[in-house]
């Protein structure tokens, strides 16, 4: 079977490579050496050298010399420290989120983060089948009052939340949010994991990375020091302390545990399609690589007789007495 599909490989195994001989090309190379033409002239060589050198100089003038290390006025502190890569359970091509962690992370968001940060692209219904049952999600939604209307009299009215409602925002508008936080705007957290370099690692490092400013660092009024935040001064203070929340599954609520859980929750909020995407990726990889292998095999199978045939020219024998 294999030998019929790949006959050239087998016939080649014993063959020896012929040394490259110049004699084969004597008839064709003769004509080029005798007439050099424009492309062999000194003018062409000089102008192409000039063009190459000139474009290199121009490029380096515009963008700097790439081969040399670049000097930058920014220190590592001004760019923010690079976050450490954490062993999150969903890192890897075939790993889903840890949904118990999403559930705990939602609790941390609800009890801690949501005091200042909105999450306006996530609705209550999105939690159903991810971290909560439908009854739990309904009960949580009903605890929040939403403005709806207008009713028959043209007036707006208050009603308890439904599954289709989005997460309530802590402030009615940006100005109120800034006024409540000393001028700093707490960003919406729906897509924050996608919106920051380092993604989940950055969020985790930021939440656990608060420390005293090193000697010589002056912070502005009301700022806190965090080496992972670009510039070092961040308006948000450290919020996660051991035992701040009480998990209903009995997990000890340490600072790092809460930071991990809320990071996984925010990663899910930014990528709710994550689990399905990875599973479909696995299936697509299997199908497409199989089809590629089959098509390569069929091509070689179909071409094998064309590639191995020999065409023999059998010239007509000259007549005994020459042409008539």
């Amino acid at each position, binding site marked *: 079977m294999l030998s019929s599909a790949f006959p050239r490989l087998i016939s080649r195994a014993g063959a020896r490579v012929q040394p490259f001989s110049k004699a084969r090309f004597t008839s064709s190379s003769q004509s080029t050496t005798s007439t050099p033409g424009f492309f062999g002239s000194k003018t062409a060589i000089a102008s192409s050298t000039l063009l190459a050198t000139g474009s290199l100089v121009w490029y380096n003038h515009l963008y700097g010399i790439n081969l040399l290390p670049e000097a930058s006025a920014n220190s590592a502190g001004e760019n923010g420290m690079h976050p450490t890569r954490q062993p999150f359970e969903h890192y890897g091509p075939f790993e889903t989120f840890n949904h118990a962690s999403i559930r705990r992370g939602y609790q941390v968001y609800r009890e801690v983060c949501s005091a200042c940060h909105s999450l306006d692209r996530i609705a209550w219904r999105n939690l159903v089948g991810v971290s909560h049952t439908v009854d739990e999600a309904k009960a949580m939604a009903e605890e929040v009052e939403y403005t709806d209307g207008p009713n028959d009299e043209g007036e707006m009215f208050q009603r308890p939340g439904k599954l289709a409602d989005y997460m309530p925002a802590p402030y009615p508008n940006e100005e109120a949010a800034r006024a409540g936080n000393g001028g700093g705007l707490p960003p919406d957290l729906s897509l924050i994991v996608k919106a920051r370099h380092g993604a989940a690692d950055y969020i985790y490092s930021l939440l656990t990375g608060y420390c005293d400013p090193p000697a010589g660092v002056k912070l502005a009024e009301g700022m806190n020091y965090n080496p992972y935040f670009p510039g070092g001064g961040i308006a948000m203070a450290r919020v996660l302390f051991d035992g701040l929340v009480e998990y209903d599954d009995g997990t000890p609520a340490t600072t790092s545990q809460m930071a991990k859980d809320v990071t996984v929750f925010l990663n899910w909020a930014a990528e709710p399609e994550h*689990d399905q995407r990875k599973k479909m990726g696995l299936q697509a990889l299997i199908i497409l690589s199989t089809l590629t292998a089959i098509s390569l095999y069929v091509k070689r199978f179909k071409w094998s007789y064309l590639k191995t045939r020999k065409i023999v020219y059998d010239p007509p024998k000259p007549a005994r007495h020459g042409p008539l």
Partner: protein
Amino acid sequence: MAGVHDLIYRTFFKRNSAFVATCFAGAFAFQITFDLGTSAWWDYHNRGKQWKDLRAKYIQAGDSDEE
């Protein structure tokens, strides 16, 4: 051997209607088995992490009809 080949040829390939039906049924069966197989491996690989593994802990009696 030739008898088996002949039987397969007559059953699935000779009539166009049978051939088309074989293609459709084969695609349908492959889709289901492939999906079941990859899902089984996926759930085994991610056991304990997905919502379906946790759901039983939080479900209350009487609302098992929905997720």
